[in-house]
């Protein structure tokens, strides 16, 4: 009998040796004359346990983790191919508490299937959404997406259905679907996990978007830092084309949708949708003025849907199970689930997909297990480099777009970066300005110049601690932040003040101020 062994091909798993584990298992099986079929799946998202090896048994998949090449001989000795016990055995994967407590809708297949196997995708409810969509009118598809309450998961949280409706309503001989896969925020990797672990769900979501609004060409704008995602996507696209899921006359519907991956080139600002479009057109990634909205004049001046990977990858399940099924998850105006990414100084880092409403504290401690260093978690940054730093007193905030807005923070793309009590928040504020200076596209003055002046002012704050001019420099950084907040063209300059001012307000002692001063002031 051939035993199926699952070993992730996900970048993070590879970063801790999954490739070596895979070849060691193959070699050892050969040496022992045992037949194994190694399937390279995506990651289940329990990254602290990578490399996680799973063996298919008649009771289900049994997990062994974290496996190193040096463990292979003893795993074979223990007869792990029959799911037998071993020091690294975690039991049935589906019974792992970390996974059981999640609500995996968008990530239902990630880590489960062979990412590039179309058969595997279809066997796990793949392409049911597109099949349903092809029976509906464009307006009906858009209405389903609108009714689901899905909002842009890239960070802006704009209702996806409303964006689609604008494009649907435009008359044009050519429209485009653009997937923003320029996942540049530190602490985020959910887009990468989807593209490496279940690329067909993104392809299906984009195809549904194309069918809905009448767009025949799609582009995935993928960051150049993701070579494995690039290879996986290209392989999946080629397979989908061959099987009639992409190209002309999709599944005999008469509809056309072509899809191409375009590589970005390492500019953070190109995650901003208008800058991304400029880049796709072959130009410098300078931010455009809005209006016109990309939905009306987007790529090459044509009506364009620009959506994040997670938004598009969530569309298939909505079209499969219905708007209400998705909308039943969540709280307030944040409907459905959010794939949360635990990162930074965290013991159990990984992907947690949950309905909106869980608190930061649950994520950091129940899922995350506290800091990796064992020291107290002093601050978390949510929503990438443009997100606010939150102190412990705000850890009970529920993950909900509006609840975060209320405390002058952003949920963004769902990345949570934890810092222990060794962090110097003045240094983090300085880094926020520095990052903005490195990545500014240069089109608007508050961002281009303000970021560099910001670094200088923070340096002055640090060097003038206890001196008479200290108060003045604190005021200066507040004034500068005000200019950037209100005067910048896009979120890069406009939101750099979030990490800066939140650090200053919540951790004033790091800036040489009394611990209580200004706390909570935004």
């Amino acid at each position, binding site marked *: 009998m051939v035993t199926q062994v699952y070993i992730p091909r996900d970048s*993070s798993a590879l970063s801790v040796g999954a490739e070596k584990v895979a070849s060691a298992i193959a070699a050892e099986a050969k040496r022992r004359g045992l037949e194994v079929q190694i399937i390279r799946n995506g990651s289940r998202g329990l990254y602290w346990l990578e490399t996680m090896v799973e063996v298919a048994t008649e009771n289900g998949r049994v997990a062994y983790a974290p496996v190193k090449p040096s463990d292979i001989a003893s795993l074979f000795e223990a007869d792990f191919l029959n799911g037998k016990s071993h020091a690294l055995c975690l039991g049935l994967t589906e019974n792992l508490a970390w996974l059981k407590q999640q609500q995996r809708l968008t990530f239902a297949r990630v880590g489960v299937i062979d990412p590039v196997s179309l058969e595997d995708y279809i066997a796990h409810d793949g392409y049911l959404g597109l099949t349903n969509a092809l029976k509906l009118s464009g307006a009906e598809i858009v209405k389903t997406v609108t009714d689901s309450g899905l909002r842009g998961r890239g960070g802006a949280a704009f209702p996806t259905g409303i964006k689609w409706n604008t494009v649907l309503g435009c008359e044009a001989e050519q429209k485009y679907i653009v997937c923003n896969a320029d996942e540049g925020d530190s*602490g985020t990797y959910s887009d990468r996990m989807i593209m490496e672990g279940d690329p067909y769900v993104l392809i299906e979501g984009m195809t549904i978007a194309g069918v809905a609004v009448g767009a025949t060409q799609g582009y995935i704008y993928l960051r150049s830092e993701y070579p494995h995602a690039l290879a996986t996507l290209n392989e999946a696209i080629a397979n989908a084309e061959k099987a009639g899921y992409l190209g002309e006359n999709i599944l005999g519907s008469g509809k056309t949708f072509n899809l191409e991956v*375009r*590589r970005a080139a390492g500019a953070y600002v190109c995650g901003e949708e208008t800058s991304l479009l400029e880049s796709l057109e*072959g130009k410098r990634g300078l931010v455009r003025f809005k209006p016109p909205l990309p939905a009306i004049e987007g790529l090459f001046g044509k009506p364009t849907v620009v959506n994040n990977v997670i938004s598009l990858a969530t569309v298939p399940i909505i079209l499969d199970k219905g708007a209400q099924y998705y909308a039943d998850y969540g709280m307030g105006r944040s409907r459905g689930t959010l794939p949360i990414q635990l990162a*930074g100084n965290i013991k159990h880092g990984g992907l947690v997909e949950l309905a909106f409403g869980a608190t930061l504290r649950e994520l950091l401690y129940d899922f995350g297990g506290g800091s990796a260093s064992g020291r107290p978690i002093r601050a978390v940054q949510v929503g990438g480099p443009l997100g606010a730093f939150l102190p412990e007193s705000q850890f009970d905030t529920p993950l909900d777009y509006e609840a975060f807005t209320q405390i002058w923070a952003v949920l963004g793309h769902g990345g949570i970066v934890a*810092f222990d009590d060794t*962090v110097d928040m003045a240094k983090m504020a300085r*880094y926020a300005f520095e990052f903005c200076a490195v990545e500014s596209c240069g089109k608007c003055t508050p961002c281009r110049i303000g970021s560099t002046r910001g670094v200088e002012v923070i340096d002055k704050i640090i060097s003038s601690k206890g001196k008479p001019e200290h108060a003045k420099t604190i005021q200066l950084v507040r004034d500068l932040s005000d200019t950037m907040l209100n005067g910048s063209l896009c979120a890069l300059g406009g939101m750099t003040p979030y990490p800066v001012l939140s650090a200053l307000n919540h951790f004033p002692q790091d800036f040489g101020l009394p611990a209580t001063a200004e706390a909570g002031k935004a």
Partner: protein
Amino acid sequence: MQDIEITQDENLAIDALIVRHQRTPGALLPLLHAIQDNIGFVPESIYPKIAKALALSVAEVHGVVTFYHHFRTHKAGEHVVQICRAESCQAMGSEALEAHAKKCLGVDYHQTTADGQITLEPVYCLGNCALSPSVMVDDEIYGRVSSAELDALIAEARR
């Protein structure tokens, strides 16, 4: 414009790539990627050729090449080592890792070691944030990298 010698073979390869990408909508980035993938950098001396083929000005080509961190106008070392500087990696000690790399290699960011082997570059997030700090050597990513492991990776690359 500084001239860097490129070989006849490289020139022919570039010409072929231009022909292949010329008609692609928004061709410039895919073409620059293809050239850099093929010969390792985008020499300034070929800007006029690219500009002519894509009906752009030389200034536009220069603007695009220099706007994006990924493109380089000079050959890199045999191997490129990128160290993540973003917040998640900072929370796990990447600053010490950066300092260690610079000291051991004797170069700063964007520089190449004297033996032409290693080019050191900063990177802002590799999407491996649950296993910080992260390093990329050429196209391979490594997580939870300690100073000792970085030394080993560099030694392996040099071999």
